[in-house]
């Protein structure tokens, strides 16, 4: 927490009161999500307690959260530096395919199960890091916009996966990895424990380290950050490598859970991950760290998905709900700000009504 005021002073509003208020507001968002999660869980439990609140359902929810939750975390990191990562699913699939392939080949060559698992995991995460490095290089050095870069690399990574697998699924994981996807500790699946650990590590990286601070500053204002001696490529490359590694971790969970991997798995996760990241409090224009928020938002959306599924609502309706939540977050925030502005407008008539788009972020902070 010691870093928080520094982060905000870097945003431009150097006064500490605004910084302190911002911390409260950020936690307000987190607490709001927590309250939302609890109320969603309560509502569906009241509708059908025997099914929704059963141990089996809770376990199945906990099993489904980590994959897309980690992808949302990757998007959230990219958004902190005012970017976006659309290649998350392709990276996860590529790393999952490597793990499945190496597991089979390694076992066939008679290596020990533990050895194969270790190499497969290190290789899988490294692939994520390399993919992230490619994204970061194209964005920082070739100066291509993040959305276009990751749209293209999404296709490239997916293309590599298809070319390698000939479009077929890759099967096979080692014994320890299969157990990891299946076993529980204290009644909670191991994959969910891994998710929790990754969330905490990424949170610590973004809040406590030099890199995290520089990312936040770079996202808040590139010009200010560069004038303070932070180099753009340094931050961007690292941020996308981190995002790539988180996506690869999602790939590890996916291959452990399903014991297979394919190039076309989970294409609908891209949008879901962005929805979760935005719902979790990430700002697409950068400068806001929302890691815990993203994790909570993933939980909220999975609670809703499971509830709708229980009530026999089609997946298409769930898609509509996802979209409504995504735009709803902005509409509610906008209306709240408008009411807030209307009040301050009464106090200060001279203030212009039409606020320029690019300055919306700064204005929001002055109002807070």
């Amino acid at each position, binding site marked *: 927490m010691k870093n928080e005021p520094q982060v905000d002073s870097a945003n431009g509003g150097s006064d500490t009161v605004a910084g302190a208020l911002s911390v409260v507001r950020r936690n307000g968002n987190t607490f709001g999500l927590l309250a939302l999660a609890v109320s969603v869980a309560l509502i569906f439990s009241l509708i059908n307690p025997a099914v929704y609140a059963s141990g089996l359902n809770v376990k199945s929810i906990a099993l489904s959260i980590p994959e897309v939750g980690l992808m949302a975390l990757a998007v959230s990191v990219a958004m902190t530096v005012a970017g976006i990562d659309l290649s998350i699913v392709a990276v996860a699939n590529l790393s999952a395919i490597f793990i499945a392939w190496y597991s089979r080949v390694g076992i066939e060559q008679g290596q020990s199960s533990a050895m194969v698992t270790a190499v497969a995991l290190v290789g899988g995460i490294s692939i994520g890091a390399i993919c992230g490095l490619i994204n970061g290089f194209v964005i920082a050095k070739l100066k291509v916009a993040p*959305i*276009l870069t990751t749209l*293209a690399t999404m296709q490239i990574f997916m*293309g590599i996966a298809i070319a390698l697998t000939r479009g077929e699924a890759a099967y096979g994981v080692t014994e320890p990895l299969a157990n990891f996807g299946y076993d529980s500790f204290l009644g909670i699946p191991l994959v969910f424990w891994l998710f929790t650990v990754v969330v905490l590590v990424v949170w610590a990286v973004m809040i406590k380290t030099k890199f995290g601070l520089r990312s936040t500053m770079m996202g808040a204002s590139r010009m200010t950050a560069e004038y303070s001696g932070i180099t753009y490529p340094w931050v961007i490359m690292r941020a996308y490598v981190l995002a790539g590694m988180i996506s690869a971790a999602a790939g590890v969970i996916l291959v452990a859970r399903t014991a297979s991997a394919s190039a076309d798995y989970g*294409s609908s996760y891209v*949008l879901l991950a*962005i929805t979760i990241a935005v719902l979790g409090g990430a700002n697409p224009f950068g400068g806001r760290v929302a890691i815990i928020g993203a994790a909570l938002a993933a939980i909220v959306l999975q609670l809703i998905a499971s509830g709708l599924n229980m009530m026999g609502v089609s997946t298409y309706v*769930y898609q509509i709900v996802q979209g409504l939540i995504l735009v709803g977050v902005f509409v509610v925030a906008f209306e709240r700000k408008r009411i807030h502005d209307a009040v301050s407008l009464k106090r200060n008539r001279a203030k212009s009504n039409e606020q320029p788009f690019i300055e919306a972020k700064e204005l929001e902070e002055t109002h807070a």
Partner: protein
Amino acid sequence: MSAEVATSLGVTEKFGTLWHKYKGENHETALLLLILALLGVIAIVEPSALNMTFVGDIIRSGIVTLAMALGLLLVIISGGMDVSFPAIAIFSGYATITLMNSRGIDGAIWPFLVAAFIGLLLGSLNALFVARYRMETLIASLGTQVIIRGVLLAFIGSVYISTLPSQLDAIGGTSIMRLGNSPVNVLVVPVIVLAFLLSWMLKHTMFGRSIYAVGGDRESARRVGIRVPSVQVRIYLLAGLLAGFAGMVHVVLSRHASPFELVGTELNVIAAVVIGGALDSGGRGSVKGTIYGVVLISLVQNSLVRLGISSYWHILVVGLVVLVGVAIQAQAASREAKATRILESTEVAS
């Protein structure tokens, strides 16, 4: 700096001025050279593939992409990004066919207008979120994409319609000419006409110039008296209208209606527009460049099979071409930004 200039005098400079003269407003010439280079590769590797059938195939596969790219071009020039247009397109096309089938009515021209109108209505969703709620355009269109697609599949229909109403189907079978073995459908005409109209609108109308102004610098546009939200509303309504029309073109050309098509092709269309010189940060782009971009993408897609490349490699190759094309444009844009500054400073110095 002066030493560098001195050594590069002569041939390089001559080439530089020539290049400056012919590179086009949006680096269209670089794109044209890329297209020629690709054709050259095909001519060397598989010369028999270069025939009129090839041209016909490129036109046929490019026409729907171009129809969708026109609406997207407006959005991108204004500094936005849209991923909802394929959802709007297929919603409009499929809903119109469903309507015609359920009422048992037939027609040839008016279904296109109905589809365009449905597209306009759906486009108003984007307009609302972007102009009224000032959402980031990518996020807004991601949201509307799933909402529109969800409503289509949940409430309109999720079945494959294999036969179109007969008059509409007849249009799908009408061709204006044949290029080799490949018939060129009559729908090429309205799409080309639309492209010309849009090009004229962008160059010569107040609204067209306002789109560039908003994309170039929103704040400056506002200060010279352009009503930014009103321009944005018109952009997204028009983009929706064009997407709806494109959806109907797609349905008629493919001669069936499937609600699962088009969504997922947005990357190719975005790539075509951006490669065509529209700047992702806004304020730049042209219909001419977009046409080149569409031709390049169609060319790559159509030539891979002819060059005997296994279909497993297609996505990878298309992705690489997209990345290269986008990177060329990004590099050119950033070089230009630098060059302008140097020019200004030398003028001041002299």
